[in-house]
C-alpha cells in the first residue's frame, strides 16, 4: 500500500504498541485536553521501547516522545526573573491560554512564559537556553492551525506580545519597519491613517503577529494582488539559536549582495531562528474598493468566470475567493447570516481595488454585464459601501468559525492545479459517504488553494483513517502541496514527503543542524521525526 511505502522511514515497530493505547489521537480534540501529550508521557513510562513512540503510520500527526532537553530549574527561573522582571510568568492559570492552540486541539505543558521587549533580551534568553539545553517555543498571536505555535511538552514559551513597536515608516517608499510582535490589524490601522495598507490580510488579523506571519509565510486574501511575503518582506532581524542577533533589516527594494538569508527564515516556523523585527513593503491604500458576490451553477463556469475576470478586471482585481453551497448552509445555520443572492452550488467573492472609483465601477459593471448575459453567473450583488463590503466578506471569512460549530473538524489546506480543486471535494464526498457529516470546500481559488474541511459529530478514528492518507495521496498524484499556506507545525510534519523529495528534506535537516545544533528552537515541528536518524 502506498501508505506504508511512504512511511518506510518511520519506525514501524511502534504500530502495535500504538493500537493498544486507545486514548491516542492525532491531537485533534474539541475539548482541548492534553491527551496527546500526556498520554504519550504515560505510555513512555509503561512501554519498553523509549524510541519509536509517537508518530506511527496510523497517526503521523501525534507528538513524538520528549527529546532529552534539560528541565527548567529554580536557577533558570532566577536568571529569567532578573533579565525580565515582571515578565517571567509561571502562574499556571495565566499560562493556560498560551499552552493551547486556537483550534483547541493541541495542548502543551510549559511552565514558563517569557515576554521580552527588545531584541537584546531575546538574544540573552536564547544564549542562555542554548547553553542550558532548554527547548524554546517561539509564540506570536497563537493563531496557527497546525499546532506549531504551542509547546508539545515543557518548552519555554517565548512570546513576542510585548515587542509591538513600529520602528519606522517611510511614506515615499512605503517601507514599514516594526518589531515582530505587532498585531497585523494594528499595523493595518497605522498604515491606513497614512494612506497605505499591509500587503497581506487574513481572518486572524485581530490577533496574529507579523513575526508569526513571516515565520509561517502566511498567504491570505490579498496574495492574488500583492504576492507572497517572500516578495514583500525586504528585511528581517532574527535571533539565532545560540543568541547571535542577525540584523538583515534592509529597507531596500533591490539588494543582490550575496545569498538572500531572509528567505531561509521566512516560512521556517520558528525552527531556524526567532524573528524579532521585519521590514516590509506596503502598497498604497486603494481609493476605490468594490466587492461583488456571485453565484455559479458549476465549477467549470466558476473557472470561466475567473478567466473573464482576469481579462476584464485585470489590474484592479485584488481577491478571487470561492465557497460552495455546503459552506453557505453552515453560515446560515450556525451564524444566522443571510445569503444575499439566490441559492447556487458555488459562490464567488471578487474584490477590486483601484485608484479611481468611476473607472473601476465602469470596468466592474461591464464585467458583470458580460458574465450575466453569457450565463456564466446566475445571480450576484455588488457593494461599494464599507458596511456592505464587510457584510459580503464575512460570508467568506467566517466559514472557519461556522465549521467550529458544526462538530469536530478535519482541516486540509491543499494547493492543486486550479481545474482540479473541486474534483478533490467531490471525490472525498463520494469516498466518505455517510461517515462524514459535511464535506465542504472553499478558499483562494485564484491562487489554486483549497481549504477542504470535513466535519463529524465527534472525533472519529474510522473517518480519519478513511480521509488520511487518501487525501494526501490524491494531492501528491496531482503534484500538489499538502499544506499550501498553513505550514507543517506539529500536525503535518511527517507528511512533508508527499510534497517534497527526500533529498530536499535531507538538506533541510542539514541546514537545521547547522543553525540549531542542539535543536532547541521549536522542536517536534516542521521537519519530520525521522530527520534525526
Amino acid at each position: 500500500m502506498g501508505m506504508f511505502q511512504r512511511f518506510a522511514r518511520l519506525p514501524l515497530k511502534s504500530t502495535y504498541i500504538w493500537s493498544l493505547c486507545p486514548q491516542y489521537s492525532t491531537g485533534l480534540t474539541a475539548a482541548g485536553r492534553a491527551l496527546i501529550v500526556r498520554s504519550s508521557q504515560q505510555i513512555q513510562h509503561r512501554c519498553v521501547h523509549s524510541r519509536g513512540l509517537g508518530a506511527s503510520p496510523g497517526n503521523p500527526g501525534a507528538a513524538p516522545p520528549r527529546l532529552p532537553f534539560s528541565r527548567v530549574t529554580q536557577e533558570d527561573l532566577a536568571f529569567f526573573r532578573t533579565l525580565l522582571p515582571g515578565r517571567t510568568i509561571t502562574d499556571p492559570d495565566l499560562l493556560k491560554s498560551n499552552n493551547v492552540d486556537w483550534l483547541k486541539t493541541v495542548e502543551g505543558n510549559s511552565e514558563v512564559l517569557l515576554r521580552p521587549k527588545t531584541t537584546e533580551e531575546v538574544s540573552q534568553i536564547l544564549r542562555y537556553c542554548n547553553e542550558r539545553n532548554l527547548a524554546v517555543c517561539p509564540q506570536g498571536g497563537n493563531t496557527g492551525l497546525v499546532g506549531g505555535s504551542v509547546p508539545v511538552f515543557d518548552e519555554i514559551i517565548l512570546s513576542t506580545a510585548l515587542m509591538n513597536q513600529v520602528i519606522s515608516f517611510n511614506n515615499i517608499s512605503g517601507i514599514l519597519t516594526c518589531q515582530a510582535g505587532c498585531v497585523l490589524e494594528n499595523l493595518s490601522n497605522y498604515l491606513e491613517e497614512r494612506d497605505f495598507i499591509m500587503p497581506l490580510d487574513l481572518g486572524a488579523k485581530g490577533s496574529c503577529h507579523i513575526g508569526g506571519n513571516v515565520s509561517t509565510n502566511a498567504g491570505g486574501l490579498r496574495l492574488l494582488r500583492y504576492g507572497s511575503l517572500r516578495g514583500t518582506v525586504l528585511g528581517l532581524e532574527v535571533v539565532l539559536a545560540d543568541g547571535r542577533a542577525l540584523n538583515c533589516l534592509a529597507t531596500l527594494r533591490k539588494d543582490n549582495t550575496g545569498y538572500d538569508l531572509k528567505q531561509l527564515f521566512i516560512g521556517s516556523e520558528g525552527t531556524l531562528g526567532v524573528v524579532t523585527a521585519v521590514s516590509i513593503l506596503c502598497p498604497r491604500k486603494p481609493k476605490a474598493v468594490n466587492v461583488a458576490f456571485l453565484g455559479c451553477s458549476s465549477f467549470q463556469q466558476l473557472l470561466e468566470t475567473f478567466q473573464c475576470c482576469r481579462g476584464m478586471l485585470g489590474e484592479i482585481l485584488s481577491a478571487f475567493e470561492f465557497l460552495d453551497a455546503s459552506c453557505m448552509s453552515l453560515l446560515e445555520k450556525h451564524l444566522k447570516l443571510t445569503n444575499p443572492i439566490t441559492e447556487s452550488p458555488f459562490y464567488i467573492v471578487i474584490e477590486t481595488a483601484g485608484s479611481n472609483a468611476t473607472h473601476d465601477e465602469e470596468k466592474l459593471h461591464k464585467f458583470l454585464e458580460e458574465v450575466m448575459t453569457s450565463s456564466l453567473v446566475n445571480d450576484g450583488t455588488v457593494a461599494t459601501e464599507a458596511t456592505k463590503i464587510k457584510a459580503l466578506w464575512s460570508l467568506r471569512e467566517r466559514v472557519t468559525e461556522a465549521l467550529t460549530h458544526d462538530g469536530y473538524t478535519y482541516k486540509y489546506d491543499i494547493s492543486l492545479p486550479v481545474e482540479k480543486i473541486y474534483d478533490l471535494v467531490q471525490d472525498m464526498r463520494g469516498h466518505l459517504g455517510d461517515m462524514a457529516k459535511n464535506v465542504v470546500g472553499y478558499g483562494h481559488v485564484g491562487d489554486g488553494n483549497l481549504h477542504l474541511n470535513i466535519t463529524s459529530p465527534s472525533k472519529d478514528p474510522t473517518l480519519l483513517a478513511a480521509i488520511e492518507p487518501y487525501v494526501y495521496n490524491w494531492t501528491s498524484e496531482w503534484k500538489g502541496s499538502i499544506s499550501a499556506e498553513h505550514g507543517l507545525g506539529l500536525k503535518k510534519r511527517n507528511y512533508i514527503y508527499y510534497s517534497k523529495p527526500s533529498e530536499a528534506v535531507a538538506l533541510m535537516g542539514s541546514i537545521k543542524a547547522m543553525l540549531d545544533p542542539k535543536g532547541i528552537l521549536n522542536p517536534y515541528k516542521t521537519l519530520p521525526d525521522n530527520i534525526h536518524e
Partner: protein
Amino acid sequence: MSARVLVGVKRVIDYAVKIRVKPDHTGVVTDGVKHSMNPFCEIAVEEAVKLKEKKFVKEVVAVSCGPQQVQETIRTALAMGADRGIHVEVSGKDYETLGPLQVSKILAALAKKEQADLIILGKQAIDDDCNQTGQMTAALLDWPQGTFASEVNIEADMLKVVREVDGGLETIKIKLPAVVTADLRLNTPRYATLPNIMKAKKKKIANVKPADLGVDMSSRLEVLKNIEEADAGGAVQTNTEGLSSLVMEQTLRPVKSGSAPSPIQTRPM
C-alpha cells in the same frame, strides 16, 4: 389597493467613513469621500418595495434632492425595486443650505403633483440627525404621520403603524394619505441583485427644478461654525447633571439599535 408611494432617499457620507471637519470650520470634507444612501432611507425603500410585492401599492417613486451625484442614490433605489425616479436638481449655494424645511416643501409639492397616497421617509439622516423632514412634510400637506415606524400594515384605507417611543411601542391607526418615517427595526433592506441592477439602468429618472414646483429654497438658518467633537467640550447648557452627560456622549453616528430616540437630539457642533 393601488396606491402610489413616494420614497425620499438622501445621499450622505457613508456610515463607516471617518468624518473630517474642513480646516476653515465651514463644514465637513466631502470631496473624494465615499457617499451612499442614508441607511434609514434604505429601510424606507425596502418597506415601499415590500408593500408593492404585497400588492398594496402599484408604483414606487424614488425622489432625491441634490446635484448630479444623487442620481447614483436614485439608481440604487431603482435596483432595490422602485419603479421610477425623480431627481430634484439642487446645487451650489442652495445645496449647501438645503435642509428639512426646503426638502419637505419639495416633497409636499411632488406629492400633490404625482398624486401620491403615501410618503415613506427615513426617520432621520445620519449626517444632520435632524429628524424633521417627515414631520414637516406631513404638516405642510395636512396629512397624518406615523413616525419612528417599526411595523406598518395596511387595513382597508387605514394604516396601522407601530411606533418606537421612549416608553416602548405605540400602535396608532391613521387615514391615508399619510407620511410614515422608518425606524431601524422596520425591516432589513435587501441586497440589490445583478438582474435588478441591470433592469434599473433602463428605468426612468425625471429631472425637476425646485422653481418648477414653486418652492422657495432660501434658508432661515446660518451655520456659524463646525468643530471637531473632541474640541467641543460640552457646549450644551442644561440644568440636569445626568442629562448633560447623556448629551455629551452623543456622537456623529447614527442612532444604534436598541435605544429609542431620545428627546434631545443635539450634539456639540
